[in-house]
């Protein structure tokens, strides 16, 4: 499987109120296409900083970061924005939908910043993704009218709309109850099974057990990097509409 991202000897230092913090101390990580990585570690271990760097929201102080073959560690702000809009999909703990937009409009946002001309095709695609996450009946609802689980499903649909090479999930079930968490994890697993690469930050072992690989961090370093065999899931139901997920050939 080809590499999606490669991190070599990554350091991140910053100062908080004139106290120097060395958040990442030489992290090495390679993620291949189709991987499902759970990033674990206690708070302060550097996992959030690593996720920010992976998400091109932050630049490493030292070391290299290749994403889809491109070295993004030295890119300008605008170039990073472009990388985010083309290669990455984000799922947040807080869902982070825009309250003034409907479900479909929220899913559309990444397309706007890709410079894609919004038309009937793109609209159909967004509706298709809303149906994929089971919200086909709530296209015109606002986030405030949806439950937490539903909002997170909109967020998942939004993270898929630009056909990203990598989906970054930051505690995607952190605000959800067990049952809803399970639904979300089934959805992520199905996406992974269909070929999507996912890196997920979590501190819950239950949630991490859905992944295929668990990376544990401590004090800014990778403590362990072990493969994991998830419980087999029941993939019954209609197959995922692949044309919505992959680039057209």
């Amino acid at each position, binding site marked *: 499987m080809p590499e999606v991202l490669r991190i070599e000897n990554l350091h991140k230092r910053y100062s908080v109120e004139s106290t120097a913090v060395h958040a990442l101390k030489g992290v090495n990580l390679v993620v291949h296409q189709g991987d499902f990585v759970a990033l674990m570690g206690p708070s302060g271990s550097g996992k959030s900083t690593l996720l920010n760097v992976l998400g091109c929201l932050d630049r490493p102080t030292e070391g290299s970061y290749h994403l889809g073959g491109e070295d993004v560690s030295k890119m300008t702000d605008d170039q990073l*924005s472009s990388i985010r809009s083309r290669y990455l999909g984000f799922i947040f703990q807080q869902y982070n939908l825009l309250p003034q937009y409907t479900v479909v409009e929220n899913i559309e946002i990444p397309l706007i*910043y890709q410079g894609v001309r919004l038309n009937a095709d793109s609209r159909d695609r967004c509706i298709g993704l809303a149906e994929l996450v089971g919200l086909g009946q709530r296209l015109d609802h606002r986030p405030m009218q949806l439950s937490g689980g539903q909002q997170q499903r909109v967020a998942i649909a939004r993270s898929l709309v630009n056909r990203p090479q990598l989906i970054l999930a930051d505690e995607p079930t952190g605000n959800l109850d067990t049952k809803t968490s399970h639904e979300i994890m089934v959805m992520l697993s199905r996406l992974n099974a269909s070929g999507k690469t996912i890196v997920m930050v979590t501190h819950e072992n239950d949630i991490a057990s859905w992944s295929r690989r668990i990376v544990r961090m401590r004090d800014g370093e990778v403590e362990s990097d072990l493969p994991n065999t998830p419980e087999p899931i029941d993939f019954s139901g209609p197959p995922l509409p692949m044309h919505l997920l992959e680039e057209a050939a």
Partner: protein
Amino acid sequence: MDIFSITLVSSLVILLVFLATTDKGRRGLQLALRSLWLHKLRSFLSMLGIIIGTSAVIILMAFGEGSERDVLEDIKRLGTTNIIIRSVKPTDDANTNRRQMVATYGLTYQDLEILKTIPSITRLVPMRIFPQETRRGARAHNSRVVATVPRYAEVNELTLLDGRFIVEEDDERMNNVCVLGLETAKTLFPFEEALGSSVKLGEFVYVVVGLLAERMPTGGTGGSQAAEDFNQDIYIPLQTARGRFGERITMRAAGSRSAEKVEMHQITVTIEDVDKVRPTGEIVRAILSDPERHPRQDWALTVPLDRLELVERTKANIRQSLGIYASISLLVGGIGIMNVMLATVTERTREVGIRRALGARRSDITFQFLIETMVQTGIGGLLGVGFGVSYVFAHAALKALPMAAMLFQDGSPSPILHLPSITWSLSTAVGVGVIFGIYPALRAAYMDPIEALRHV
């Protein structure tokens, strides 16, 4: 239109076309309208400064236009190629020992003869003007007697309702004929046919040969140019007046008597060409200033053309001060909007973070907030223009309201819509949006996306 407003308007048009036709522009516009609609009261309040500023500009400019038109019409009525010379009672008469029973002053027939020698003067209309009671049977009217020559009609562009004006023959033969102003005729002949009837003026009886249509009074502008109400006039031939009344006129008013000896009250001089008006005015002034001819300052010269220049200067002054008022109010409005936008940016920090994470560039964020401010000031400007324009049209109706007399002076000018002021104020309002929107927009764009995402 000057180059300044053309630039403003064309940039406004380009902006609008961009917003309407490009995908990004339409999105931005839609988003801006939506977030303004989400906070209706807040948006309205922050727009208020702009609304007041633009409507003030429109209304003040309209009043400026109105008063300018009034003055211009006044000047036109006086004639731009005319010079008006009047006899003025010298001020020292009232409080010196030389006080006489009969005040003697003013222009003379000799002056008239000298003026006739100036080649650039094509027409001279001498006048004697004095109040006198006119009688018709038991009815009396306090008229203003104007003794003049036939050419008076040309200079003042008189419209006759009936009959004719004074002719040369009347003047030569000292005919006892008269032409009545509208009010004079109405008072003396409420029920009868005036034309052909006779009225009594002083000791003699005059035949009415003509009736004048209503004439707009000229506004008094101080100095030698007093307001004139032509409708109270009675016109008689100059030589007739000289023969019947003599040089000495006695006026009775409310029990007191006064007499004056004035050969000529006014001479209206017409110059052949507008360019020669001012030089000729100087010549006339020089002639009359000769101390042998007029030892005292008992005359005054009015050149309507000078007033035209004065109007131009006043207009420039009005424009300038309006510009200052408008800038101040728009500045205040702009600061208000900037304040609200800064609060909005803080409030929407998280939104900025989300958008940045989803691929928005800094320029996208800047654009989004800038468009929002511009839409806000643009809508404010439109509302202001709407209010200002409707006020201009509603002014007449407002003035007619019973309480309005307390606010509006009699004879105050009516506003006339000044079209360029609409485009100026509108483009300036949008410009204010750009200037005061840039800082909040950049502040939003340069937030750290990670910090912004953490913002609650």
